[in-house]
């Protein structure tokens, strides 16, 4: 990856995080996970690694956001790339539009709705099976949360995907080490995620979910093994990019005041925490 390319992606990821913070006002959004997966989203849609573009393309790769609460990062990425008018992001939660807390198919670029965890790996397996039956070369990427791995349906679908040798199916786990209210390892320990997937017949690799170079290096080897689905465990930081939101159990869902927003935008620009300021508008759900 050239320096220019990296800078282009970084600039895009910065703007995505700006949009996410703005969507965390006036009712709020799931800000922590949206910030942790922003770089993954930008890499997937904008690096050219996947066949994705705003023009409808029947041969496009399929991206499914199984942890639907990250939708601000998805919508911000899609809007920045021209899938729909960027001004629509300011319609977040308004009755005049359909931009709410989980994705739906009326928004261009969204392949399927989600919100209930543990659903889209099976749906993705169905799409991947269709591609195999049609001899299509397209790939199916399913973005999941680490907390989502608590759901039994994930493992059921993993077994079936492996049995059907769906090597066109790729799971990307946003490993930000938090589920809703707690660190994952405190509540339901998940490690080793790599070995879990491997024992289910997948091939798994861990990478840095905030490094475009590392992501590129990992994605370049897909599928990791012929006849086996691939799992990418992308190590990330909840709240990434905004120091006073990083690694905070109580910054899963947040609704910030305008004053807090300007402070957080400043943190995003400078990388310096205003940790002495209490965030009053935050809500833990």
């Amino acid at each position: 990856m050239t320096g220019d390319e990296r800078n282009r992606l970084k600039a895009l990821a910065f703007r995505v995080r700006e949009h996410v913070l703005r969507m965390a006002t006036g009712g709020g959004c799931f800000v922590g996970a949206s910030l942790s997966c922003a770089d993954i989203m930008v890499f997937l849609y904008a690096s050219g690694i996947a066949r994705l573009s705003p023009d409808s393309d029947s041969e496009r790769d399929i991206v499914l956001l199984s942890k639907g609460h990250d939708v601000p990062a998805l919508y911000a990425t899609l809007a920045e790339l021209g899938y729909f008018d960027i001004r629509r992001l300011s319609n977040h939660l308004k009755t005049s539009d359909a931009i709410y807390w989980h994705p739906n198919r009326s928004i261009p670029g969204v392949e399927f709705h989600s919100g209930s965890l543990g659903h889209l790996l099976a749906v993705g397996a169905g799409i991947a099976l269709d591609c195999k039956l049609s001899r299509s070369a397209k790939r199916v990427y399913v973005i999941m949360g680490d907390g989502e791995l608590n759901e039994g349906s994930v493992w059921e679908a993993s077994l079936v995907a492996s049995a059907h040798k769906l090597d066109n199916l790729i799971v990307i786990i946003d490993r930000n080490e938090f589920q809703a209210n707690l660190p994952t390892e405190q509540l339901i320990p998940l490690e080793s995620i790599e070995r879990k997937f491997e024992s289910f017949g997948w091939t798994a690799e861990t990478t840095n979910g905030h490094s475009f170079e590392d992501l590129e290096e990992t994605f370049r080897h897909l599928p990791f093994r012929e006849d086996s689905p691939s799992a990418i465990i992308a190590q990330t930081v909840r709240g990434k990019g905004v120091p006073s939101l990083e690694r905070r159990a109580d910054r899963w869902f947040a609704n910030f005041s305008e004053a807090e927003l300007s402070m957080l935008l400043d943190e995003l620009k400078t990388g310096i925490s205003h940790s002495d300021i209490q965030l009053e508008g935050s809500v833990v759900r």
Partner: protein
Amino acid sequence: MTPYEDSLLRLVHTDERLVIMTAENRAPIKELIPLIPGRFVDVGIAEQTLIGMAAGLALRGRRPIVHALSAFLTMRSFEFIRTDIGISGLPVVMVGYVPGFLSDANGPTHQAIEDIGLMRLVPSVNVFCPSDQQELAEALPEILLTEEPWYIRYLNTNGTTNETGVHLLKIGKPNVVHRGFEICILSYGVLLGYASRAASLLERSGISVQVVNVHTLKPIDTDFLEDCLAHFAMVVIVEDHFRLGGLSSIVAETVAQCHRRIESTGSRVAAIVPLTLGDRWFKPTLFKDVLQWEGFTAEALAARIMKQFKHEVSYA
């Protein structure tokens, strides 16, 4: 090959979008499987994944027909049906094996006697309960033409089925299988034949009984039900389902909607007699013994209906 498998085979050959799926419930399609290589997918004992994958295939334009035991299809994967299929209205056909009394001696774990209620609750999902294999086989092409999701109560060829000789005319339109003018029996599925024979027994006692095959529970033909409620002294519902959620509930909902209209014409709304499983599971034993124990043989049904009818006559 059963009539159902014959029908499926023809459809697989004429419609390249069809994919036959199962969660390792191979019994209803065992002869078909070897004949459709590349068009058959077994996901193992994984009903949630069955529904999720079917949604993914349907999203790509395929037409999955999925099979699993009714109890697990409708309950283990209920949220997947509601969320993946119901919200999107994807045209997945869900075929439930051994529904209602057909689970024989398996016990309450396998008794799908709330399946119709559950499926009816999901927006966009339709419900079809054929009374025999022929009706099922005949209905399939029409069901697929709707391009909507369906839940079907599968009926095997063994055991007693529809012996009325009258079969489906049209999806959504109840069939009068036996004409009469005093009592109207509404039934569906495996019990239709018993209801019909109960009607014959009652007629020997001088009571005129109409029998209707309400094979399509959703969408329901409300006008037809309203007509029954307005023109008969008693409407009896015979179903292997809890009292809540099935045809008895549908009739009660219809009464709530239309009673004023019926009364305004000077008629009385028919007395409603639900012959259901009430609020409990049934005795796990062989099918014919289930019918005996639970009072759903033709003789038992006739006696129960006669008792109610006498009661209604004395009340009237």
